């Protein structure tokens, strides 16, 4: 049921409240979501497209598509930010001609056994985030290029001008570090 009273100011509303208002056609609420979340999406978009204009176009198109489909958003399934990020990933891979990479296959690297059948819980996400931040910059950059930018090891090597063995080594170290973090988290949990 629609509220009778004036809605609260968008600045003080949570993302979930703004998303619910956007579902009812509230442009101000959707604009506030853009202000809050576009910088995170833009950062990720630049991992797919080093050309900032293409990255900016991608973010614009994802938000416009989200506006058109906002009534399909289900807050019970994922935060609005996650919903946007997955849309962005999907569109980026389409544009890169990598639709097959959208399939969420488990990692095949031996250091990374599949530990979760569903989405990781908040503690695991936090642990992974901490582990990522503790990685050496070049290791984390290769992980981003592989799992955010959707490039293969060979493409990363060619794009960054480094030997493919180095790329694989960095991927392996990064995934091993994450694996240890997740194992420790699992043992604590």
């Amino acid at each position, binding site marked *: 049921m*629609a*509220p009778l009273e004036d809605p609260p100011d968008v600045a003080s509303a949570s993302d979930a409240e703004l998303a619910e208002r956007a579902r009812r056609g509230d442009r101000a609420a959707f604009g506030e979501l*853009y202000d809050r979340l576009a910088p995170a999406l*833009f950062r990720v978009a630049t991992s797919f497209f080093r050309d900032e204009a293409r990255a900016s176009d991608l973010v614009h198109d994802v938000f416009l598509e989200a506006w058109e489909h906002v009534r399909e958003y289900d807050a019970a399934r994922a935060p609005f930010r*996650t919903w946007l990020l997955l849309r962005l990933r999907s569109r980026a891979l389409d544009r890169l001609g990598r639709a097959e990479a959208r399939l969420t296959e488990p990692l095949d690297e031996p250091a990374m056994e599949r530990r979760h059948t569903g989405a990781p819980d908040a503690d695991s996400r936090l642990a*992974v985030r901490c582990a990522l931040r503790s990685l050496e910059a070049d290791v984390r950059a290769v992980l*981003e290029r592989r799992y955010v930018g959707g490039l293969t090891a060979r493409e990363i090597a060619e794009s960054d001008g480094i030997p493919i063995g180095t790329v694989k080594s960095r991927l392996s170290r990064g995934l091993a570090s994450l694996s240890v973090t997740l194992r420790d988290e699992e043992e604590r949990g």
Partner: protein
Amino acid sequence: MTDEELFLALADAAEPLPVGDAAKLRLRAALDADPYLPFSSELARHFDLPAEDVRALLRKIDDPEFWIRDVSPMHGHLDFTPGPSLRPLHGGFARMLSGMRIQKHRHVHRELTYVLSGTLSDGEREYGPGEFIDMPEGSVHEVVVPEGKEALVALLSGRIHLLP
């Protein structure tokens, strides 16, 4: 952990990158050009019309040129033809004034009222944007626009009989 989960973890850990004012203005201009876009899919389904046709209709709503004014008891209306499965029912957008009341009536044909902005009440509950009242043949109700804000609705309607 799947590729998708790793993607989300890496995205969560990444430092945001500010977007420029030009990008913000571009997005806002796009939203202003299509203010009712979130309702297009549902309207297309309810009115049996192609989504592109509905999007084109929705873009006309805020242009006074397409509206017929001063049609009592509405504030104005913008007609369109629903899809083939719904004919001969009538389709249209209507602006209903704050405080307006349509007295109790019986529906000879089905009527569907989809709210785009503002609020409608049928005496039992209120309906806001994205909600609809679906009245089958023979059903009876009255409709009120609560005081405070004009309502904009999409209507699929046929004949009605006003009741005393």
